[in-house]
């Protein structure tokens, strides 16, 4: 893989940038692979990368119906944090956060990992109680998290008002300093480039139309570029997880909802960190280009159109002005939607299934982006070994039968 860096930039700058190699190949699908990952988003490409790098499975392919990073990976608000309540969640999200820290260097691709801090505001006694429980659980699980009194919140993020007369006064907040944001496209491209260099075939513009099985075991897939044989198929298709699973007659505890987000026009830096408020129901950060990136809740109904209703946008804007009154005069520049795969307990499904060789990694709902490297890492382990490791085990499908849910409802109060 060609080395990127300031030196290569200078060298190429002197000869008109003619020496840059393509970041990935555009291979035609081979008749057979050892494993196939359906879905060329962040999680899918990370899975392929770790399969190749840590498990030596290089004769594998990522099949993407559109262009890599075109699904939720290209539509999220890039927030990174791991201050989840339950031990099982803390384990996987913090595993991801540790991987995020050096991922740019590992992939030799600057993903603009900005550990600028994430604030979750508490506006009433109930929220304060919940957030203090979370911060203490984080501390005992070794996840960096602290409780801030209103004055400290104001010091850390000056635009926030802590006036006690507000409709939703700030009674305090949790802060995860190592949380923050990064550049979603860079993560997708970084993983794709590294996986491709390890021999993984990334096949874009190729849609999986069926999954073949015999005697309860996977034998291959049908695609718009012809059939491919393989003993292992892994679905990492977010909003389309149910559609892929239905190809094997499997039903999942997942419903796909539109999740909208938007950006303001680019302005000079004003938001130093990520701010999230459940009660006011909005969260915001400022991109490195200067746009305020604003997100809120899902549309309540099921939809695959990647579009939501306007009344959701109106509530989002009203909440934005309530949380940060100065944003009222800024203009919102672009609004879009993704399809988020929501589980009843707001926790993912990382699991084998009753069909041998078919694995599912989905149900991340509104919180999938922050888990990308951790999800890929443990899912690669599950695919390679056909057994979940300790971090992945609690997220098996069986939990819906036994009732041992990982109930992060509180965490999903506001989509992030």
């Amino acid at each position, binding site marked *: 893989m060609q080395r990127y860096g300031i030196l290569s930039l200078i060298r190429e700058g002197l000869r008109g940038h003619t020496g840059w190699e393509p970041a990935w190949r555009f291979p035609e699908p081979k008749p057979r692979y050892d494993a196939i990952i359906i879905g060329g988003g962040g999680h899918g490409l990370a899975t392929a990368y770790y399969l190749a790098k840590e498990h030596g499975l290089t004769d594998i392919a990522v099949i993407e119906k*559109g262009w890599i990073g075109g699904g939720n990976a290209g539509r999220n608000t890039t927030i990174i944090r791991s201050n989840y309540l339950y031990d099982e969640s803390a384990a996987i999200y913090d595993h991801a956060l540790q991987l995020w820290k050096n991922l740019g260097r590992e992939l030799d691709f600057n993903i603009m990992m900005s550990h600028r801090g994430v604030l979750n505001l508490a506006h009433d006694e109930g929220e304060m109680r919940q957030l203090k429980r979370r911060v203490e659980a984080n501390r005992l699980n070794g996840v960096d998290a602290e409780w801030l009194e209103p004055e400290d919140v104001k010091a850390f993020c000056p635009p926030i008002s802590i006036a006690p007369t507000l409709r939703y006064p700030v009674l305090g907040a949790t802060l995860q300093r190592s949380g923050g944001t990064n550049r979603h496209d860079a993560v997708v491209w970084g993983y794709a480039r590294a996986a491709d260099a390890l021999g993984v075939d990334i096949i874009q513009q190729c*849609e999986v139309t069926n999954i073949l099985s015999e005697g309860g075991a996977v034998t291959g897939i049908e695609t718009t570029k012809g059939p491919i044989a393989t003993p292992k198929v892994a679905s990492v*298709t977010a909003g389309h997880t149910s559609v892929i699973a239905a190809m094997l007659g499997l039903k999942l505890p997942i419903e796909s909802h539109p999740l909208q987000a938007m950006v303001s026009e680019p302005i000079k830096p004003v938001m130093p960190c990520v701010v999230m408020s459940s009660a006011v129901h909005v969260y915001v950060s400022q991109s490195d280009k200067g746009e305020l990136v604003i997100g809120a809740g899902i549309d*309540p*109904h099921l939809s695959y159109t990647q579009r939501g209703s306007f009344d959701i946008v109106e509530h989002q804007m009203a909440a934005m002005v309530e949380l940060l009154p100065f944003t009222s005069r800024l203009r919102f520049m672009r609004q879009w939607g993704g399809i988020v795969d929501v589980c009843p307990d707001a926790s993912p499904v990382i699991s084998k299934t009753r069909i041998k060789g078919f694995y599912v990694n989905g149900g991340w709902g509104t919180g999938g982006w922050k888990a990308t490297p951790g999800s890929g890492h443990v899912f690669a382990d599950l695919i390679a070994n056909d057994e979940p490791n300790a971090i992945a085990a609690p997220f098996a499908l069986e939990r*819906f039968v036994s009732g041992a849910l990982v109930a992060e409802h509180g965490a999903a109060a506001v989509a992030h």
Partner: protein
Amino acid sequence: MPRLDPGIRSVPAGFRMDRRIKSGDDDIKCGNWGRQEMFLIRCPWCGERDVSDFSYGGEAHIARPTDSETMSDSAWAEFVFLRSNPKGVHAERWNHQAGCRRWFNILRNTATDDILAVYKMGESPPEVTANLPATPSGEAAIGSGNDAAKILGPDETGGATAGK
């Protein structure tokens, strides 16, 4: 109440899937077919209201088991948690929460948000035609506005917009 499994492959009873891409030439409304309703929901009792008047109640026709004590844990989990979540025709429950507070069913094409039919609780879903994606996770010929449905292909006939 028939248990519907509107999975993509198996067409449930009562649906007639029309995968042919209808040419719109004959339709004065420039290429779409009949009155399309998306997110202006026609409450069977109150009439058309904006979607914000309603609350969504999830997949329809999942009757609550009357003999749950005899069911296995996994059969019970299927009732409580598993959903078909189709990209296509979906029978779903809606409540006119800000109006008459009555529950009713809707058949909606989740690939385009087209509302195909509105029918009352207790009724079985009517037959509908829907313009569905040609492939399971593809886009319908028109209606989502997403990547694969932005530009007319060379073979697609477009409706006559005024003037042409």
